[in-house]
């Protein structure tokens, strides 16, 4: 739009067409776009900023874990895991640690160990929990699938494997805990037992089935 045009839009001489004090007539045209290029330095600056963002995201991701809350917490979490993997092995110490580890089982087997009818078998008063420790250790290390008879009911689902996430001491601890919690009164499990069974089944990747475990038991 030429400058003279702008003038005339603003000029009071237009009064014969519009009432000159009518604000609508006094306006400039609708706003338009200019097409100046984006300065190159700005583009570089923005790329640098995005680069920083990527670095920061990686550096403060907390390994994308849900249980790391502040920077440096990762070290705390690692130290915690270290402490849980090495430390006292008395039944009392194991039971205390086991109660904490059990938080990870409670989602399925429930805090009271009664499970969820039809889906997750109970741990309270079952022959599996109070039976031979080897069977229990195997279940924990590699998981369990297929039909299983627990406390008179049949279940058929998938119990995840824990061997990859829990250390020998943590597995011994949680088993010691569930064997003595609620109405259970079976003896403790030792980290050394877990260690030797872990070695023995090192090349196994499939979950156990109840019948496999039963035949192993009768073989021993």
């Amino acid at each position, binding site marked *: 739009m030429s400058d003279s045009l702008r003038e*005339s839009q603003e000029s009071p001489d237009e009064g014969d067409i519009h009432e000159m004090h009518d604000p*609508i007539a006094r306006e400039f045209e609708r706003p338009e776009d200019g097409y*100046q290029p984006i300065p190159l330095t700005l583009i570089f600056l923005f790329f640098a*900023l995005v680069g920083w963002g990527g670095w920061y995201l990686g550096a403060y991701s*907390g390994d994308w874990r849900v249980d790391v809350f502040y920077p440096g917490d990762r070290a705390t979490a690692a130290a915690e895991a270290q402490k849980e993997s090495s430390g006292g092995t008395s039944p009392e110490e194991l039971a205390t640690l086991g109660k904490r580890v059990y938080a990870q089982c409670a989602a399925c087997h429930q805090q009271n160990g009664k499970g969820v009818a039809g889906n997750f078998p109970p741990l309270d008063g079952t022959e599996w929990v109070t039976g031979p420790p080897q069977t229990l250790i195997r279940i924990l290390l590699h998981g369990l699938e297929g039909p299983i008879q627990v406390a008179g009911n049949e279940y058929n689902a998938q119990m995840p494997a824990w061997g990859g996430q829990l250390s020998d001491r943590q597995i011994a601890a949680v088993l010691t805990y569930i064997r003595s919690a609620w109405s259970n009164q079976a003896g403790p499990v030792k980290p050394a037992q877990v260690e030797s069974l872990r070695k023995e089944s090192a090349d196994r990747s499939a979950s156990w089935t109840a019948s496999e475990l039963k035949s192993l038991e009768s073989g021993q």
Partner: protein
Amino acid sequence: MGDSETDLERDAQSRKAIDASARLPVVFMMASGVFWLLFGTVLAFIASFKLHSPWFLADQAWLTFGRVRPAHLNTMIYGWASMTGIGVLLWLQARLSRVRVPLRKSLIAVGVVWNFAVLAGTVAILAGGSTSVEWLEFPPWVAAILGALFVVVMAASVLTFVRRNVEHVYVSQWYLFGAVFWFPFLYIAGNLVIHGTGASGVAEATANWWYAHNVLGIWFTPIGLAAAYYFIPKVIGRPIHSYYLSLLGFWTLALFYNWAGTHHLIGGPIPLWVQTVGIVASMMMFIPVITVAINHHMTMVGHFDKLEYSPTLRFIVFGAMSYTLVSVQGSLTALRVVNETTHFTHYTIAHAHLGMYAFVTMVLFGSMYYILPRLTGREWSSGPLIRAHFWTTGLGMVLYWVGLTIGGWIQGQMLKNPDIAFIEIVQTTLPYLWSRSFAAALMSVGHFIFAYLVGRMLYEWATDRGKDRLPPMLGGDQ
């Protein structure tokens, strides 16, 4: 451009027709907005005064801080800023699309019901029925009504756009369309997730700040920026500096803003990465902010003298500069080193007002100074009063921000030191809280002046008076 005289004539005629169609719904929205502005101002003043003088109005349960303060927030957000914002949005879209405002009767009905909904929600809060979820204190049934009304506004906006008579879609349209699509979704989703069973505990807090931050980010900000992008070039009569910068600014805002909300939870019991995502997104906001700032500034260059006579330009430029300032401050505040001092202090309150007031509210004032004379065919009645409105609100805001930012920073430093008794910290903040009330008084004066100006204009319009007054701040287009 040969036939310029008749072109101009035709343009002015089409503007007239559009404005005639916008008249009732837009004036109704804006007048309601001004009512809620006054209402919210009174609540704000009571809340502010209680912070340094706790005895003030302390014997009535409904006047306690815990009720007055959320009532203030909600009337300002859903009453003043949303209603006025919708008025600005409808007018801008009609003007930019060159079509009449559609669904006029429904929109007026929306305005009427909206007022009752905000009133009911506010009464509920004052009566003790707040949901205690920040920015969503209205009871869920009020939220359901507002959600439905938002959908009607959205429909009107889509219809306007679909019927448009222009080929080139100007940048303000993108922002308005963004606001109108993002916000109803945000509002409905936020309410469902938070008041429903979707999120509880830590997840609810995360959803809460996702919502609250986005109310500003993808509702008021796009409306404010759309207005700035429209009125700056419109008033000075010059094209916007760069279409490419407009593009970059819009899309990076769309990409990053939505992620930034979790910076409100830094140091809280939410996973580190969720906080980090919020921090990074906040820092990335530098991109749209710098882009928009350059675009606006380069458009203004050489025209700053027009601030003298155009109230629209004054308020809008103040708002646009505040947008840059509040965004830069926000990005930096998201950094952990800053946040560990400022979190849980008055600093945050100052920051929030820099956004909602210095940016959004000032832009809305500026827009109304332009739009209302066109809708009523009346000029503003007094230049000195417009100036008084500008200086009381402008200076009040500056004082508010400076006082609480400094006071909040000191408060944060003291809070980090476990050897300092809590009461000592409270006492240290007292002078800053007084400066806040003083600033509130200044801004309140401005609001009453503005309400008088609007009221007088509407009165003259209703009684068919004041037609041949000249523009109050002489010098050209306003």
